[in-house]
Each structure stands twice: as C-alpha cells, then as structure tokens.
C-alpha cells in the first residue's frame, strides 16, 4: 500500500498532506509533553522539505513515463464507494504529465520565494500551501470523475485562505469573489456529471464514475451521449455548456474573467504565482480532459463560439493590460490574453493545436508564475506596484532586471524561449482549422509585445527618478536561486521542446482518435443524423440504450 514503485501517484498526491499530518502531530505532541511549540522556522523548513520531496516524486513520474504509450500509465485503482461506482482511480498520461511536473516544480519555488515575504502566521501558511498541493495534484491525476470533482473543489479552500489571510487591502472581497465564481460554475457541472452518470448506468446497467474504462469495465468515456432526440438536458449540447461554464470560469474565458484581476491583485505573491501557474490550468485541462472527449460533437458544434470568445479574450486582455498602472494587474490581464491562445489551440482540434495548447499551459505556468514571483520581490522591497513609482531600476538592480527581462521575453514569445514554441504551434494548428482566427490571434502576439515591453521600459530603463528606489538592494542569494530555477525551464522548453512534446504525441493522438471514434459511434447508433431528426424517440438502437422498455412502450402509444 505504501510501496513507492506501486503507488507512485498516490505518493505524489498525498505526500504534502501527510507532511501536514506529521507536523500537526509533532506540534500537538510538543504542546502536550514538552509544553513548547514548534518554531515557525521548523515548519517552514519542513514544509520546504515536503515540497521538494513532492517535486522529486513528480520528476520520478516523468522518468518512469513511457512516451510511446498513449493511454494511462502508473494506474492505481481501488474501491472507495463501490455501490456508487466511485473508485480511487489515478493515472497519468501525456496530457497531464507536464502539468503534474510543473505543479511539483512551482510549490518549492514559491515557498522559497516567500521565505521572508510571508512573516505572519507561518504555520497556517505552510499548512494551506501543502493542502493546496494535494488538491492540485489530485485533480490532475484523478481518473474517476467523482474523485476529480472532490479535488477540484477542495483546492479552492486553501486558496481562499491564502488570499484572504495574507492578501492586500481588498482581500476579503477578492477572495470571496474568487471562491463563489469558481464554485458556482462547478456546481452546475455536478448536475451535469450526475446526468452523464445515469446515462452511463442506463447504457451499461451498472453505476460507474470512471473516466476511462479499464480492464474490461466501461467508463464514462464510453457513454453514448445523444446529440439530439433525448430530452434537451440529456444532449451533448447542454451538457457541454454546463461543463464548459465550470471550466470557462476557471480558465478564465473572456466574459467570465472578472474575478481574476481582483484575485491576482489582492493575493500575496505565492498565491498569485500558484493561482496563475496552476489553478488557471484546471480550466483548460478540464476542456481537453473532460469536455472535449465526452461531448465531441458539441465541442465541434460550439468551436465557433469558443474561437470567438478566445479571440475576444486575447485582444481584450491585451488592450486592457496595456492601460494598467499596476504591474500585477497588467500581468493578470495578460493571463486572460494568453489563456485565450490556449483555448483556440485546444479547439483547433488538430495535433499542432492541441500540443501547442498543452505546452502553452506549462509555459504560462512558468512564465507568469515567474513574473508574479519577480514582482513580489520588488513589492517586498517597496510595497508598491504602480509602474509610475519605478523607472531606471536596471541601474540599481541589474541582476533583477536581467531575470525580469527573460521572463518578459518568455511571456511575449521570443524565439529560443518557451513562449514562442507554444504560441507558434497554436497558431499553426489554428491556421489549419480556422485561418481567420489565427490571423486575429496573431494581433494578440503583437499586442503582448507592446504592453510587456512598454511596461519593462517604464520600470527598468530611463533615469532613476524616484528617490525611494535609489537604495534598493539587488537580489539576495535566495532570490537568485529562485530566479535561476524559474529561468532554466524557459530555456529548456524554448531550445529543446522535443523532450516535452514527444511524451504528448501519443496521448494527443489517442485523444483525437477517441473523439472521432465516439463521433462515429454516435452516428451509427443514431442510424444517421437525418433519421434521428425525423424519429427522435423510436429510432432503432436508441430505445434499448436510452430508455426503459416500458417507458418506450408508453412513448410508442
């Protein structure tokens, strides 16, 4: 049960929370038997240790990952609530592999970056960060929809506290808004989930929440969800919309993005870094993992809508970012823009688009995470974030300026850095699927160069006008480690993306094949679209799948 080889993924998920358990037990024991508490420092060091361990384990997942295999790997399954078909079922494939590695990577980096920044209530801070890690890892690795939903909502709570306790002046408003937006979206998804669950039960005769059938058992992915003919709320169209809403709020896609700037501006540095780096990825991950393969026809049908919203997000995010006075808010709006790219890449639904989107998710996590962490470093020194407060910082903080420049270039998508590869692939894929979307999206690339470089120029170049900036110290050794750690993967992905793209190939091809297969299955079961339209309920083949015998007899009368 605790074997590292057998249960590697469980180790990845539960190591952080087990660490919490150990620390709490030590704390309690110390209070009872020695009447003294653990120091803040020991919590921080131990938390860092668990975070590094978690990162090490996630690298081990990568090392043991077989890039040829497009299916799930390192699968673990055991019964959890068997009479509801709920299993503890985790696995990793090319889609989630790098998201897991990135999540593992970001936690120790953010903990190190916030070593002196978060000075109050350190124990609670470590507690919530490690809980958050368990939630995020669990959501990326769950292959049972119930388990996924559990982790998906569970990670909101630590983030709620992180923003609310250590955030800025309007933190209470921001954190509640963040929580309610994301939760309200996902609650409707719960109903959608239950609808699929019972459609699946009707088709296969047993209750099952598994995403992919395994070892002969059918999973939710095998369910034939009708495109027409059934009651409206059982069709792919509406179910896709319900799932899509949950994910779109999280991404966030254009009209649902308003919580993001608030949350980012008020969140403390580690909160922003994790929020932008990992939490937003759950939206796009949800689309590629759940919404698209479960409802392929609706996804195709609605891709025009997604393209429109994606392009709107790209351009709107870029334009709004341009006029921001607050650096953090600027980066927050740039996230809206960048994630618009990911969305159009996903819905291009070809190999380049999907892989580009997956890679861009990792890129955005690293680049935006790096930007937030670097902004946090200057904020820790000056406690302001307005661009106008700065200017000429390159003179007093040359090392900082260099790293910030690299992160900026990475975010813009300069060749040799990670952002370029992702955006290029996305545009390539989108151009093949919908040329005009690609053309419009390209303006976003240009705009992002404009606002990022303009911001960089105003902060780092020119004369050193503000006296308060004159005495600023350059990065400490600890901060340099953080900055170097964040910069390395940018170059790696930028120069040799193959080591990241190759493991994705098989999984993305598998995904595309699944979607096509399911489209064909549905068409064949419907006896063709036209027959479906004229004979909604009595179409042969549908009756046995979707209705009780007596119910269909009543319908025939």
């Amino acid at each position, binding site marked *: 049960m605790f074997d590292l080889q057998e249960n590697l993924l469980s180790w990845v998920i539960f190591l952080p929370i087990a660490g919490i358990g150990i620390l709490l037990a030590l704390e309690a024991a110390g209070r009872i038997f020695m009447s003294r508490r653990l120091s803040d420092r020991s919590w921080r060091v131990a938390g860092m240790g668990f975070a590094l361990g978690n990162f090490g384990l996630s690298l081990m997942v990568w090392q043991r990952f077989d890039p040829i295999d497009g299916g799930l790997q390192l699968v673990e399954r055991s019964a959890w*609530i068997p009479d509801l078909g709920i299993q503890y079922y985790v696995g990793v494939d090319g889609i989630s592999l790098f998201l897991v590695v990135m999540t593992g990577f970001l936690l120790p980096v953010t903990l190190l970056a916030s070593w002196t920044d978060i000075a109050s209530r350190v124990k609670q801070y470590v507690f919530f960060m490690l809980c958050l890690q368990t939630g995020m890892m669990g959501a990326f690795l769950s292959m049972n929809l119930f388990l996924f939903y559990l982790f998906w909502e569970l990670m909101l709570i630590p983030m709620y506290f992180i923003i609310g306790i250590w955030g800025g002046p309007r933190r209470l408003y921001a954190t509640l808004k963040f*929580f309610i937006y994301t939760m309200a979206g996902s*609650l409707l998804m719960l109903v959608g989930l239950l609808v699929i669950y019972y459609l699946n039960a009707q088709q296969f005769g047993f209750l099952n929440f598994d995403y992919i059938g395994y070892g002969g058992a059918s999973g939710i992915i095998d369910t034939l969800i009708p495109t027409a003919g059934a009651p409206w709320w059982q069709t792919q169209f509406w179910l896709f919309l319900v799932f899509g809403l949950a994910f779109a709020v999280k991404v966030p896609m254009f009209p649902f993005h308003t919580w993001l700037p608030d949350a980012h501006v008020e969140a403390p540095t580690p909160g922003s870094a994790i929020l932008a780096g990992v939490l937003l990825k759950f939206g796009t991950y949800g689309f590629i993992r759940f919404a698209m393969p479960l409802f392929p026809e609706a996804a195709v049908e609605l891709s025009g809508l997604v393209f429109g919203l994606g392009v709107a997000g790209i351009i709107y995010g870029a334009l709004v970012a341009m006029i921001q006075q607050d650096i953090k808010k600027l980066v927050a709006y740039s996230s809206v823009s960048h994630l618009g790219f990911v969305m159009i890449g996903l819905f291009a639904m070809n190999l380049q688009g999907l892989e580009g989107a997956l890679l861009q998710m990792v890129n955005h996590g690293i680049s935006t995470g790096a930007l937030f962490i670097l902004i946090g470093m200057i904020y820790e020194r000056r406690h302001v974030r307005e661009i106008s407060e700065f200017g000429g910082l390159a003179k007093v903080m040359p090392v900082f300026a260099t790293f910030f420049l690299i992160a900026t270039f990475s975010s813009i998508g300069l060749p040799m850095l990670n952002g370029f590869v992702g955006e290029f692939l996305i545009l390539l894929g989108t151009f093949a699927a919908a040329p005009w979307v690609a053309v419009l999206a390209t303006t976003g690339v240009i705009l992002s160069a404009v606002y990022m470089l303009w911001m960089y120029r105003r902060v780092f170049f020119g004369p050193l006008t503000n006296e308060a900036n004159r005495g600023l110290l350059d990065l400490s050794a600890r901060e340099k480690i953080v900055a170097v750690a964040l910069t390395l993967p940018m170059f790696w992905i930028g120069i040799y993306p193959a080591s990241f793209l190759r493991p994705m190939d098989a999984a993305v091809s598998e995904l595309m094949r699944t979607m096509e297969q399911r489209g064909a299955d549905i068409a064949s079961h419907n006896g063709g679209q036209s027959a479906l339209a004229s004979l909604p309920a009595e179409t042969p083949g549908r009756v046995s799948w979707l209705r009780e015998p007596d119910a269909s007899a009543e319908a025939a009368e």
Partner: protein
Amino acid sequence: MTAPDLDLGAVAPLCVVAVGAALMPLLDVLLGRTKTFLSRPVTAAWAGTVMSLATTGVLSIALVMCFDAAGAAPRTFNRDHPMILMDGMTSFLNIVILIGSLLTALASGKFLADLAINRGEYYALLLAAVLGMMLLVASTNLMMLFVGLELMSIPIYAMAGFRRDSLRSNESALKYFLVGSFASGILLYGTALIYGATGTLSLLEIGARFDVDDPVLLIGSGLLLVGLAFKIATVPFHQWAPDVYEGAPTLVSGLMATTVKVAAFGALLRVFQMAFGPIDDLLYPALWVMAVLTMTVGNVMAIIQQNTKRMLAYSSVAHTGYLLVGILVGTQVGISAVLFYLLAYTFMTLGAFGVVAVLAHAGRERERIADLAGLANSRIFLAAVMTICMVSLAGIPGTAGFMGKFYIFRAVVEQAIATESSSLLWLAVIGVLNSAISLVYYLRVPMVMFMREPEPGPEPDRSGTFEGLVLAVCAAAVILLGIWPEDLNLILTRVDVLHWASVASASP
C-alpha cells in the same frame, strides 16, 4: 381477560430513556442533599457534571440498544394494534436522535454552569423530549404520532425558556410555545378530518382507504402536512425559527435545529410513505414549490444575518429545503439520501452551535458573527471546528455535507432520467445554485475568524473537557462521513424503507 400480545423488547430503548427521564429529578434532589449522607455537600458544578454524565449514560445505553436493533427484523410493540413500529428506519432515526442529544447532554454540564442555570430539571426535560422524538419516529398511527409530538414539544418549550432571567429566552419560549401549540392544533384538526373521512387512525389503513376525490380527506391531509411543516420550519411556516433559535440557550437551539427536526422529518417520511402514496401526484407541485421556496428564502435571508444563531437558524431552514427535495423524489434512493443527510446535518449543525455555546461562557455572549473576529488567533481549535462545520454546511467536497447533498441530488437526477421529468432536473439545478448562494454566508464565518483582527477585550475561554470532546467528535464525524461514507451507506441500503409497510400490514 387475556393479556395483549406485547413485545416489550421492541421498545426497550424507549423504556430506558423513559426510566432515565423519571429518575433524573430524583438524582438531582439527591445530589442537592448529599450533606445528609456524605461528610460535605458536592458543589453545584460537580452536581451538574454528574447529572450530565448520567444523562449521557442513559442515552448511550439506549444508543447501543438501537444499534443492536438496526440490523434485526422489524418489530411492533403490540402485534394486534401496531402503533409503534421498530424497523430499520426507526432504528436509524433513533440513532441519529440519540447521538445528537447525547452530544448535547455531554456538552451541557459546563454550558449550564457558566450561564448559572445549572438545574437538574434540564436533563429530565431533555430525556423526556428524546423519548417523544423516539416515539414520533416510531409511530404508525396518528394518535401515537400526536402523543410523540407533544411529548417532544412540551419539554422543549420549557428548555427554550430555561434562562428565566433572560428576556430573550422568555420570548423564545413563549413564541415557540404559541407557534407550537398552534401547529399542534392544526395537526390535530387534520387528524380529526382524516379520521372522519376514513374511520381509522392507522397510517397504513388511511393509505389503503384513501379516496382521492374526498375533499374532507384532502383538507385533512393538507392540515396534517401544515402542522408538520411548522415543526420542520419550511417556508412559509418558518418565521418562528430565527427568533426562537436566537433566544433559547444555545445548546437548546442546537437541539431544536437537529434532533427535533430529525424527529419531525421521520414522522413526515412515515406519513408520506404509509398514508399519502395515493396523492403523490397531487402533492408534487405543492411540495416542489415549497422545497424551492424553503431553500431559496432560507439561504437569501441567512446572508443578511448578523447574529450567528439567527444565521444558523436560516441555514437550517435552507437545509430543510434540501431534505424536502429528497422526500419529493420519494424513491428508495431518495429516502436513504434523506436519512444520510439528517445524520450529516446533525453533526455539522451541532458542531456549529457547540462552538457558539462555548463562546457564550460566563455571560459574555459572543453571538454576533463579528464577535468571532480573530478567533483563529486566540482559539485555533474552536476556529478549526467552526470552519469544518461551515465548509460542510456549504457542501464542499470532502465533508459530510457534500456527501449528503450528493446523495440527494443523485436521487433527483436518477429519478429525472428514469421519468424524463425536467421539473425534477430543475429542482436539482435550483438546489445547486442555492448551494452557491449559501457560500456567501457560510464562508463569511471563517473569513471573520481567520482574516479579521480581533476586537479588543478578553480572550474567549477555553472549551471544557467534555465540550472539547463533543466538538472534536462533531468535526471528526463530519470529515469521516465525507471521506468514507461507504459503511454508513451500506447500513442505509439495508434499511429497506419500503419493506416495513408489508410487515406492519401483515398483522391482522
């Protein structure tokens, strides 16, 4: 004259509680006179602890007996006239009631002492009320149902007014008494009409003889439902709840919000299952509207509350709405979901009221939500328990509250798909949207505790040993039921709720 065929074993748990209720006043006066047979009298605090432990002991014995009975075949007390039925559902509801009242009794010792209302009658009243609740969920006859209801209600009226020197406590008791007796009157009138129309008080017989076209019978059924609706506080019969919960001693409010509600829901389930089967279709739209209103009004009104107890009162109204959804579905899955939810709800609501009760120590009541500010700094244990309960009430995964809602909405969707009914689906949608609304006020509590600075003033007291134990049990149960609901779920599947009807009707 032959002795009737009585099965005393069937009602053994009730007997234990009844004997406890009868002996508790004697124990109280004996403890007050210890100087006649001990060298020195016991202090009032000690006497309170002994009383509270004795009550806990009595309830534990009954609890063990109910656990034993849970797996056994259904039994009736009098086989010739089955008015009391001990089946799986009764046993389960009895277990929930006993757990809730046991935790309340255990926490009461210090709570009463701190409010200087440490009088032994409290425990006698508590046990009598518990007896009424157990009778209520076991009754299959309208007369027994009424006896149970009154036996439950009258002690609770007195307990609500237990702080004789507090104006609000008096107001609470009076209000509860007036509304309660009004509800009893309505219920009794409904009973009379039903009896007039069918000539029987047995729920099963009523169900068998139900004439859907008889207006007298329909009016009677409606009045019966209204009477019970007052007790469980559904909209529009909920207005008393916030005032009463606010004024009553906090632990009594907790008891009213949990076990009383559980018992009334048990009676409602019985009435629906046994008697009202023929008018399901008639009741469906009315209950649909009532469930939606109850959820929505409860949640919306809770948002604007400043007092924790009032907030919890409206929250309990909202949860009544979710439970009504489960009753509305009416399938085996739906009813077992209701039963699960009642247990989950008992733990999380008792935990929340328990924290408020601990903060009420020494007359310095911290009842406003704002009074919780900074609790995470001064009393992290209380803050953690409160947070767990709030998160669970809000229905966030990993807690009992989520599993309860999941089971209920699962039953709704299952039935919606089976019958292709979009009105049921809308019920699920409205339910989850209500959960989203409820986040606003549930999350405000941890927000105040963790993210606001405390107001100047003395720190809250520590929780006493037993209080701490009760809170820890509630928090642990909320999390365990949220992560491992399976065992309980297995028990519930064995509680074959549709089975007892045939057993009870088999007798001549």
